């Protein structure tokens, strides 16, 4: 915050052009609020005479009942991927390279369906709690809407997110495809502990089987401790009722746990004494190690970050000052630090974290960078409040091998070519 820095003589923080994050802390609001990197870029284009545009010479369109994005942004879309022969079994990816901030718009929240999106009539939907309980109970949607609620911002990440980066060759796909099976929303719902206590749960039972009301009746086992700690029956996402593709009229939400366990279209919880060992928690969502043994019941999505800009899917606009920015999150708590490198991991500097830094939620980080137009390799490395450090791809591959797998939280490296092209590299 010295006079020198405020006057524009920025201090180098690490190699290959990384500048001190205090550039943003000291100047942040004013510069970014006034158009961001435009003001920071070295040579603005010569000004042309400003004319009064057509849209100021006649009234605009009237109000609308449900808003839509600008038509000029209509190419910001989920990328849809499917499975042959089974329409409705597949994924769609959140285009993170085209988004900013920390909250994912509901229309762009990633999808993973095992047998399509059911068209559930909320008047007919029932939620059943049974098994090791004193009184098996059913709830209507209207009944649940009368219960005490909580509201909290949390990320949701599919265990298969970033899995393609374990292939022998780095996939050359947009950032939002490689890392698009994650999103972050404000979720509102009923704490499950209230409903479990109403049913008279046997707290020594240990496990709960959760089942969805889709055509796959997708089911997963959840530790009862998690259900009683911070699980909710989510009814609202970013202020509106859940979208069908996110579980309307209700879904299980387990902060920090792998996406698949957050069962959509929730219809049933069965309290059991052991994990049911369903198809999805045994044959899928497990990680085979090189010794042939597989990790099973891997729940929290561990500390991770990715630079969303610059990233694949975007192109550099010539040398000058840029804001490197991205997302960091941990299923174990809050993000403590994010470090950024512009020289392939030889030197690192701390990025600025945008407040509020929330537990088990996306945290936006920023780092000023003066690109000299030469080759660069950008990386980010997150550290969470438990001290866990985002691992290298090499360390994950050394345990599991180069094969597509789940739970890949490795550091992502983007290459910047002199042409401005951004590539995916294994650094």
């Amino acid at each position, binding site marked *: 915050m010295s006079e020198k820095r405020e006057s524009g003589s920025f201090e180098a923080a690490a190699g290959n052009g990384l500048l001190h994050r205090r550039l943003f802390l000291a100047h942040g609001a004013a510069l970014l609020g006034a158009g961001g990197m435009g003001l920071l870029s070295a040579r603005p284009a010569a000004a042309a005479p400003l004319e009064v545009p057509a849209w100021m010479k006649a009234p605009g369109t009237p109000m609308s009942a449900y808003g839509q994005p600008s038509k000029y942004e209509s190419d910001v879309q989920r990328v849809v991927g499917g499975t042959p022969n089974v329409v409705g079994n597949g994924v769609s990816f959140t285009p993170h390279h085209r988004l900013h901030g920390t909250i994912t718009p509901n229309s762009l929240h990633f999808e993973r369906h095992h047998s399509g999106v059911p068209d559930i009539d909320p008047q007919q939907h029932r939620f*059943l709690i049974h098994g090791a309980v004193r009184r098996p109970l*059913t709830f*209507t949607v209207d*009944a649940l809407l009368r219960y005490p609620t909580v509201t909290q911002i949390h990320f949701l990440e599919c265990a298969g997110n970033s899995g393609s980066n374990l292939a022998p060759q780095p996939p050359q796909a947009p950032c939002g495809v490689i890392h698009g099976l994650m999103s972050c929303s404000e979720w509102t719902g009923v704490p499950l502990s209230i409903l479990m206590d*109403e049913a008279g749960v046997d707290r020594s039972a240990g496990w709960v089987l959760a089942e969805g009301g889709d055509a*796959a009746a997708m*089911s997963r086992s959840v530790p009862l401790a998690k259900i009683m700690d911070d699980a909710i029956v989510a009814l609202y996402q970013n202020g509106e009722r859940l979208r069908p593709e996110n579980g309307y009229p209700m879904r299980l939400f387990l*902060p920090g746990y792998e996406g698949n366990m957050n069962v959509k279209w929730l219809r049933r919880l069965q309290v059991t004494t052991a994990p049911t060992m369903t198809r999805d928690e045994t*044959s899928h969502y497990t990680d085979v190690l090189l010794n042939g043994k597989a990790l099973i*019941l891997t729940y929290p999505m561990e500390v991770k970050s990715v630079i969303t800009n610059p990233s694949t899917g975007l192109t550099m606009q010539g040398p000058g000052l840029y804001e490197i920015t991205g997302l960091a999150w941990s299923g174990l708590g809050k993000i403590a630090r994010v470090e950024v490198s512009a020289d392939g991991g030889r030197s690192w500097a701390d990025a600025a974290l945008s407040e509020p830094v929330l537990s088990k939620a996306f945290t936006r980080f920023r780092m000023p960078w003066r690109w000299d137009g030469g080759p660069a390799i950008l990386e980010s490395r997150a550290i969470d409040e438990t001290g866990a450090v985002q691992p290298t791809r090499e360390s994950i591959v050394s345990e599991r091998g180069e094969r597509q797998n789940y739970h890949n939280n490795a550091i992502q490296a983007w290459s910047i070519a002199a042409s401005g092209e951004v590539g995916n590299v294994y650094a």
Partner: protein
Amino acid sequence: MSTRKSIRALGSSLATLGTLGAFAVAAQEGPNLGVEVTPADYAAWDISIQTDGTGLPPGSGTAATGAEVYAAKCVACHGEKGAGTPNDRLVGGQGTLTDLAQVRTVGSYWPYATTVFDYIRRAMPFLAPESLSNDEVYSLTAYLLAQNGIIDEDQVMNARTLAKVEMPNRDGFILAYPERTDRPAGR
């Protein structure tokens, strides 16, 4: 109710809030709107099978009858004798889990036979889930286990026999919850 007692109550509820997880909530009681039901009421939904066989329904089947059901309802997606293509391969792959080109099937990977019954009954055939009879599901389960060499061709699968089937990869898993047991704590 004395003020002191209220303050104590407040203090204890604040202490509780501090130890709760992310979704800490002040009111821990709801309006009690759940409707009590009996097992007969939810029998049609009670479809999960536990690894000890709990939940397996009456009925039975063998690989021979399973082959007929498979040919009629499964082969189009899972190939001849479970060889896969266009969808998941179900048979073979034993001994490949240490290869980079691992083949994960019912025979090479699935740790519990009960899961085969549970999954077929709830989710298959893809276009008509929950349409098979329990005998058909037992038959298909027997067929897949026999094709994988896990049971004999003539072995009858029912609620008693299926839970006793030992899958080849039963001991192939390392629990990651609550903590990985195969490496030092803290990693």
